[in-house]
């Protein structure tokens, strides 16, 4: 099982990565066009819904929220691992992060953008969405800062913009590389502009290091707060099944979980589409897989804490709701959710599967399915079996319009991601260089102590 070669030429790294920006393979186009088609579906549904009203989604009283909110939480969650992992691992100097953090952060940014769309799509009067912004106006009407939804908006805005900055700052040296290697066309102009005249001087590097470190430090509490706030959309309400103390950590764990699963999926896709076997190596994959497994167990624990709270807490409404989930209309999905998210990951304990690409691909998809269902199972059953028995409703089923938009959102995400990978280096070149450099130094020290047979020629 081979890892990145320590003696790989730095120039080689540049050329390899820059190749991923050149003319795409057919596979790339296929993926891109499928994605765009999916987006088309969603846009169609949304236009229809916009004109007719949300009734076309087959909402009703009490089923006020549906797949939109469920998917919103899903995408927010998806966004987490990216930045969080990148930041945490950066602080811990885990060098295996370096080849993969770039696309992980891109994933964060784009899934956040997708999540934002769901908030808009969900609204009854999307054209009035700006009412939720704190803009000064003659009537002196301001949004209600007590509403968790508003905290959401604030947190997501902060998270999105910070993630983009983090991604961008970390990319500047690479953009300089691109600038130096592209000698014509709009790309050159783009890179020249974006690289801000970076020359890798000592002064730039010094401040760069400090800045990058600081933002990383900020991002960790931020990421945690974002999903706790999403959790408080539910936790702050009085409804059975939502009003649960363990929700914030539970949501954060779920977020990391689905994020890691998504990283595995994308890791595998990129590895093939852009031929990154050299950099996205098995040892790295193995590390992510183990991390994912660990988090899956944390999540499993927390979900059982939730059930336990509902069951042993003396609130008959919560108990009833739990029973309904397990036996009622939603039972199939609820059980599938528990299976996908708690049982499936057990496969990952077997060493031979930790590097078995096909298995991992399937598993990662199942995990994400499970996590999407989990979000749905948080939202829908509470509406079906709230406090008031007269308005219980077990017959409501999301219409094709809702499903269409959810379906399309995956296309939207893929589209953005694929376009990103063609314009920006999805593997961080300068950090891979650092990685191999430091590793080779380490080896050299060993050689110096003469314990190791002479091999490798120093820095390069």
């Amino acid at each position, binding site marked *: 099982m081979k890892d990145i070669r320590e003696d790989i030429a730095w120039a080689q790294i540049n050329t390899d990565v820059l190749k991923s920006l050149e003319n795409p393979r057919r596979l790339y186009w296929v993926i891109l066009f499928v994605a765009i088609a999916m987006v088309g579906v969603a846009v169609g549904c949304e236009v229809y819904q916009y004109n*007719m009203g949300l009734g076309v989604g087959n909402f009703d009283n*009490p089923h006020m929220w549906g797949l939109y909110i469920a998917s919103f939480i899903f995408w927010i969650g998806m966004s987490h691992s990216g930045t969080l992992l990148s930041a945490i691992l950066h602080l811990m100097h885990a060098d295996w992060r370096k080849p993969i953090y770039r696309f992980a952060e891109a994933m964060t940014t784009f899934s956040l953008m997708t999540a934002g769309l769901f908030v808009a799509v969900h609204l009854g009067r999307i054209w009035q969405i700006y009412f939720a912004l704190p803009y000064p106006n003659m009537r002196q009407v301001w949004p209600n800062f007590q509403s968790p939804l508003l905290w959401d908006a604030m947190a997501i805005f902060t998270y999105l913009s910070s993630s983009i900055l983090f991604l961008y700052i970390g990319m500047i040296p690479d953009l300089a590389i691109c600038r130096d290697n592209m000698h014509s066309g709009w790309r050159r102009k783009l890179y020249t502009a974006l690289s801000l005249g970076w020359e890798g001087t000592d002064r730039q590097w010094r401040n760069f290091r400090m800045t990058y470190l600081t933002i990383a430090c900020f991002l960790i509490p931020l990421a945690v707060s974002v999903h706790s706030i999403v959790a408080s959309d539910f936790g702050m309400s009085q409804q059975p099944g939502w009003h649960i103390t363990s929700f914030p950590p539970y949501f954060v764990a779920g977020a990391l979980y689905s994020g890691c699963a998504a990283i595995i999926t994308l890791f595998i896709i990129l590895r093939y589409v852009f031929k990154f076997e050299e950099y996205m190596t098995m040892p790295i994959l193995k590390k992510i897989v183990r991390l994912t497994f660990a988090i899956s167990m944390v999540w499993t624990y927390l979900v059982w804490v939730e059930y336990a709270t509902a069951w042993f807490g003396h609130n008959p409404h919560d108990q009833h709701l739990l029973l309904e989930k397990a036996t009622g209309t939603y039972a199939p999905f609820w059980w599938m959710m528990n299976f996908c998210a708690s049982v499936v990951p057990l496969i990952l304990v077997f060493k031979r599967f930790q590097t078995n690409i096909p298995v991992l691909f399937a598993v990662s998809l199942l995990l994400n399915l499970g996590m999407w269902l989990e979000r749905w199972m948080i939202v829908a059953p509470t509406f079906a079996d709230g406090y008031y028995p007269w308005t219980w409703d077990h017959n409501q089923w999301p219409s094709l319009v809702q499903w269409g938009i959810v379906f399309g959102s995956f296309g939207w995400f893929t589209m953005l991601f694929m376009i990103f990978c063609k314009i920006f280096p999805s593997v961080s070149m300068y950090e891979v260089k650092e990685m191999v450099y430091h590793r080779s130094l380490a080896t050299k020290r060993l050689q110096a102590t003469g314990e190791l047979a002479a091999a490798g020629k120093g820095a390069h």
Partner: protein
Amino acid sequence: MSISTLFENYSEFRHRHPDGDVPHNPYKWAMAIDLDACSGCNACSVACYAENNLPVVGREKFAHGQVMHWMRIERYWDQDGREFPDRGARYLPMLCQQCEAAPCETVCPVGATNHTPDGLNSQIYNRCIGSRYCSSNCPYKVRYFNWWDYPSTDNVWPAEMNMQLNPDVTVRGKGVMEKCTFCIQRIRGAEIDAKTQGRLVRDGEIQTACMQACPTSAISFGNLVDPESKVHKQWRAQQVELDKHEQVKDEEPGGTDLRGYRIYEWLAPYPSIMYLERVRESEI
């Protein structure tokens, strides 16, 4: 904005609703509904349709649970496993409880639903963006959302029918939340009259549409602050206190012999509607 107004407002509205030391003044609108008198005839509900421009959604949308009745009559059976319901049914007119600490108010992102100084839970249609968080958080599920654009839907208000629409009440378009307002158009009308005549609203001056129609006069509505009002007397006679979520009388050993109660009092939304329990003759 100035710092002084900031502090004035802060101290003025610092109290939590409901609050003993800072009561509503001069008005706190409330209801008492006698379930022993209520016969479940639906007159109140239809009257509400007439007064408040409620759309008739038709069979299909009703089947989808998109009905808009602000006032719904619920029919419950005794659950003692008898072959026949030989004690009859139990009827409950359910409408917005105009909670003092309304769960719906705090969660609205744009502040489209607020607490008015006279103790109502107001809904501002043209501020609402339709996030539906309020309804999600309502324990009684008495908020109704405009899933469709009813004014432009066939056979909701076709020509001529639209001439019946009450000019004092907005016709709601798609995408906004709505609910019982305690017939706020009537309340405001009376309050303004009273103000111009330099007096307070008299008890019985305001009748909500449901109360006015009710053939058994099961519904009474009035100002809870006014010690002379019927509602105030009823609440006091039943020892139900607005700002408690556990009534003293309920602690009495062997339970109370008073009928007054509020639904989901223990959730502490402090509803403004007191119901009087249904009574059944024990000798027959």
